[in-house]
């Protein structure tokens, strides 16, 4: 049973990102870079920065003492560190490496700009039947028109595939690094360990499904913040990430690992639904 569960885990951990990669290569090459950026985001923020730092800190007297005397606080700080490393990385990789840019102002004044011609534009086209539809030549030849076009362009529809594939890249490399390598190692070297653990081995795969949904949801939130030029969505994503990870404290309450994984699954499902509603509910038509 444990061996079958480990095989299923590997299929989930490798299959989901692999399926996304095949889809991108076959049908959506323009979005491949966001998938790769997701991989880079996790690699830099966790594998190269957070985990080595955490390893260093965990060997200190201060950390060990804090862990013994204030275990819940220590757990919270560890969870917070995950949010503090991964979410800014998500923002930076999407915003700068992915070149995702949104509106110039988040104050909600763009509708006025969109509906009302600039003074310069109005004068130029007065008397024309097409005063609100200048030619491409006109638009490119005047700085005022360029500025106006840029603001209107900021109202373009949000591309949900960008955060989707970033999240799958991020969650995919995390699943491969944290679960599939470990499960493959056990499959090839210690099958007796897997068999003694039985069906509980599958909980690791179940947790990865939750993690996939979490990373896609968080990518939606951060992407939305970038597109709407609202900085509060980044700390909001850090908070969500921290709270989600901190759910592990439920195990201290004595709930079983199975129920804990079910809670994570429900949490991530709700977060995914809410984040999709956040974006779809506020999608601005182009």
């Amino acid at each position, binding site marked *: 049973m444990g061996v079958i569960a480990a095989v299923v885990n590997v299929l989930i951990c490798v299959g989901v990102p692999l399926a996304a990669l095949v889809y991108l290569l076959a049908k959506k090459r323009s979005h491949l870079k966001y998938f790769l950026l997701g991989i880079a985001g996790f690699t830099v923020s966790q594998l190269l920065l957070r985990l080595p730092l955490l390893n260093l800190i965990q*060997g200190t007297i201060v950390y060990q*003492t804090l862990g013994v005397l204030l275990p819940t606080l220590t757990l919270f700080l560890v969870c917070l560190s995950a949010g503090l490393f991964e979410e800014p990385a998500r923002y930076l990789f999407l915003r700068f490496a992915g070149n995702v840019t949104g509106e110039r102002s988040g104050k909600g004044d763009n509708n006025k700009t969109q509906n009302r011609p600039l003074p310069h534009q109005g004068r130029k086209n007065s008397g024309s039947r097409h005063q609100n539809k200048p030619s491409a030549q006109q638009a490119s030849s005047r700085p005022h028109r360029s500025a106006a076009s840029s603001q209107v362009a900021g109202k373009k529809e949000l591309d949900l595939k960008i955060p989707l594939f970033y999240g799958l890249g991020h969650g995919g490399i995390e699943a491969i690094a944290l679960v599939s390598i470990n499960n493959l190692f056990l499959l090839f070297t210690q099958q007796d360990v897997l068999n003694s653990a039985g069906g509980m081995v599958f909980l690791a795969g179940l947790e990865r499904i939750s993690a996939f949904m979490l990373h896609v949801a968080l990518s939606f939130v951060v992407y939305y913040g970038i597109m709407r030029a609202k900085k509060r969505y980044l700390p909001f994503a850090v908070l969500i990430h921290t709270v989600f990870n901190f759910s592990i404290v439920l195990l201290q309450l004595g709930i079983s690992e199975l129920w804990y994984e079910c809670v994570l699954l429900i949490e991530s499902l*709700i977060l995914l639904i809410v984040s999709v509603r956040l974006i779809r509910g*506020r999608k601005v038509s182009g």
Partner: protein
Amino acid sequence: MKRTRLALIVLLSLLLALPLLGCGGASLPEWANEEELTAGAQEVIDLVNVRQFDEVADMFSTGTLTSDALEASLSDLLDSLGGFKDYGAYRCDAVTENGTEFVRVFQVSNYENQSVTFTVVFDEAGALSGLWI
């Protein structure tokens, strides 16, 4: 927009409230004497430090853990820790598994290269039921 914001606030509050329920630690059972159990944990750790795995294995209540298994899992780690220096902070709590109460002693131990926390578990009879670093 307001409904979505409200839903997010409610969701986050629930998510925060759930984990915070776990902040209270379980109190020790009547049979547990914290000082004795801590001294017992330090005795186990002392044996581990001098690699007396036979004696540690004999202390286990189940008798299923062999000294070879202990040596295989702890030797490399002990090598990397360096020489033992002293003990640091400790804490005891209770845990129930399959209707049986156990007491866990978390003992910080300082070594030349780094500090680690031993988790030593005792049952009501005072026998060793678990050991983790």
